[in-house]
């Protein structure tokens, strides 16, 4: 990262390029109005300054035509900006299906990140250029915000739920990663760099990162594999293993589908639903089952929760076997 003075941040994602076009439109529009109104005010101020002491100004009360004009013109302009900006936002709201998923945990005052193969890093993120990347994020304490100015992307990271964002880096290099939501004493030090690498460099980096970290076997476990181990170790498998007559429903094929609850309502089985069902099992009881599951609150941390969710997601796409 160079320290040279600049007026525009680097453009390192496809979204950044689109945001900049809109930004320049807004800048030009603003400059137009400031110059136009400023010029009119300055002209009037000079042209109609009082020149002699008994000068009488014209008696003008107003003009409905002008009022209509300067109501309609700003309205039309405002709507144009509104639609353009909303369009940008909606395009960006949904990550593409082939995006690589990085798990992010915020904590006063550091970012923990985990790659799909289980490689972990703190306050830095290495990603390959051209690859859509989606982040699934949560916080262990207060609200943080994951912000990469070069990508023009930011999303708050909340305790107690998952938030998401995504981007496709288009330029290799190192870019700032900031926490944008004030989170306490060392808020301004909660960040580091995003290193965008070529795909080959990324693969090389994954190799060295996992061997350098020591305890390679653990580090290399993908979140889903780590989650599977937890699933067994915590005893989830006893009730949710899919055996006939088990106390809990099988979780195979669950993820991403609507499921019916005991009170008859339907709920989408997404990340937040699974997280809640592990921590607060009494909130949503699946139809046909008794509310007998104990809470795992305090027994699993946010990283382990994400691994369990990753495992349940990984078996979510499997076909439902027996039923």
């Amino acid at each position, binding site marked *: 990262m160079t320290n040279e*003075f*600049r*007026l525009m941040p680097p453009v390192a994602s496809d979204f950044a390029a*689109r945001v900049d076009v*809109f*930004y320049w439109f807004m800048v030009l*529009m*603003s400059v137009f*109005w*400031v110059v136009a*109104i400023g010029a*009119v*005010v300055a002209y*009037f*101020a000079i042209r*109609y*300054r*009082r*020149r*002699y*002491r008994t000068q009488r*100004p014209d*008696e003008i*009360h*107003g*003009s409905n035509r*002008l*009022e209509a004009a*300067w*109501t309609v013109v*700003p309205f039309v302009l*405002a709507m144009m*900006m*509104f639609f353009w*900006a*909303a369009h*940008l*936002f*909606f*395009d960006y*709201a949904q990550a593409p299906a082939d995006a690589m998923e990085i798990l992010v945990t915020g904590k006063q005052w550091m970012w923990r990140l985990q790659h799909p193969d289980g490689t972990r890093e703190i306050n830095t993120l290495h990603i390959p250029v051209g690859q859509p990347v989606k982040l699934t994020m949560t916080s262990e*304490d207060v*609200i943080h915000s994951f*912000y990469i100015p*070069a990508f023009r*992307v*930011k999303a*708050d990271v*909340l*305790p*107690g*739920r998952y938030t998401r964002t995504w981007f496709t880096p288009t330029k290799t290099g190192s870019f*700032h990663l*900031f926490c*944008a939501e*004030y989170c*306490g*004493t060392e*808020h*301004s030090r909660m960040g580091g760099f995003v290193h965008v690498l070529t795909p080959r460099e990324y693969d090389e980096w994954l190799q060295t990162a996992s061997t350098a970290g020591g305890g390679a076997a653990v580090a290399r476990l993908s979140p889903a594999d780590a989650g599977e181990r937890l699933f067994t170790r915590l005893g989830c498998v006893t009730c949710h293993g899919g055996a006939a007559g088990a106390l809990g429903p099988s979780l195979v094929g669950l993820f991403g589908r609507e499921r019916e609850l005991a009170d008859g309502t339907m709920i989408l089985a997404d990340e937040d639903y699974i997280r809640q069902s592990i921590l607060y099992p009494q909130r949503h009881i699946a139809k046909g089952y008794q509310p007998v599951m104990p809470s795992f609150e305090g027994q699993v941390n946010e990283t382990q929760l994400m691994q369990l969710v990753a495992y349940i997601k990984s078996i979510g796409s499997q076909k439902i076997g027996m039923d």
Partner: protein
Amino acid sequence: MSDSDASSPSAAPARNYLNFATTAKSWLLTLDHKRIGLLYLISIAFFFLVGGFGASLVRLELLTPDGNLLSAESYNKMFTMHGVIMIFFFLIPAGPGVLGNFVLPLMIGAKDVAFPRLNLASWYVYMTGASFGVAALILGGVDTGWTFYTPYSSTYANSQVILTGLGAFIAGFASILTGLNFIVTIHKLRAPGLSWFRMPLFVWAMYATSIVVMLGTPVIAITLVLILLERGLGLAIFDPALGGDPVLFQHLFWFYSHPAVYIMILPGFGIISELISCFSRKRIFGYGFVAFSSMAIALIGFFVWGHHMFVSSQSVYAGLIFSFLSFLIAVPTAVKIFNWTATLYKGAIVFRTPMIYALGFLGLFLIGGLTGLFLSSMGLDVHLHDTYFVVAHFHYVMVGGMVMAFLGGLHFWWPKMTGRMYFQGWAIVTAIVIFVGFNLTFFPQFLLGYLGMPRRYHVYPSEFQILHVLSSAGASILGGGFLMLYIYLPLSLFIGRKAPRNPWPATGLEWEVAESPPSPHNFETTPVVTEEAYNYAHKDHAFFEQDIVDILPEEDENV
């Protein structure tokens, strides 16, 4: 009204609200809206200094990328103190508490507000709240930011959140009492003949402000109490670890705090309408549109709060509505700017200090408003949210807008409030210093924001330093400008020239009927209004106190 004998030079000074009693008790137990206005003025002037001190330390720290003046903890406490004091103890009471209290009853020809005792109580309530704020400062300060976001404020922060929250909570009741008083006063105490559409636009603006105060303030009061309950008693409301929802806090907070922006700026709109009309010697262009745009802003202002939360995990469809309404509110705001500009057309414009501030306001508020559109834009706000762009934007609105308008109004009504003229030369130089210093301070922050510099950062990457140095340099000029006010305005009380009844000469009962300074009960007899507001076309334009253009010919030589 016949001329009083005050014009005769040998007469003793006329009995007025300042000299009819001078004991401390007569001030501290006064029921006179004018004296209460001055009590508010002294109080907010003090808190402006304290808040400004916080800003100075923040700007000094940011001269270098590393934290070498303050610790991270002290830095966080400084920007929090700056925000809390400037918003709750300066900006919110500045419009209604000072100028509203002093001018509004005079403008509508009333002897006082409808409930003078409540009015005095409001000042005491405000001072009690402010004392809690000061106590919090002395006992170690608070580091949550003025926004008190949960669960940081309710569970994690290790500072005086409860005292500060109580301070803001209590000060809110002072606003409510003032708002209630103004609404009743405007409804019930207007002079005979002063129909709604003859009211000065400042009165319309205060009416709109009061409605927002009455409807919004209770919500922040409840929200602050909920934080105190969670923090003090562990009640689960916002902290997800207890089963609460942290984003609920943001909804409640901004439901008040976005309308609060209009509590701060609407009085400024009213002041600007008075100033531009008076110093253009013309009736305001499109009176009805200016009046109703205030009401429209007050109404729509209640439904835009979610634009603070585009990246807070709020539903994208909710965000869509909030974005739409935020763009919509730009329309009545634009209408005001156009009408003010059109008022200048074919006027006879006189440049006095209040008018310099009004013209400065037009430019700065225009920039503040336009950059608000950047932030209402969903796709762009993702990048700009919580950066210096936001800091620059709201300082352009709050300082470039409201503080400029307030200072314009203060100079405009200063002769009426004190009976003395300020020093024209000093005042114009100060206004220009403030304008230049302000732009140098805050314009670089727009650039910083788009570069990605997050707000509330104690240390920052070195590539941002040049812009931060520019901003800090501007802040020292701006601070110098503000300090000049603290010198020449008090000085004018002692050596300023005596003010005539109507130095500008302006329309309105406070100028045309009430003396400078007014008598304790404002008017000797109830005035009767027989004409519309800003009837400058039928007024005498010849005399201007402190006419620096005395060289102007009596008649147009070219005719």
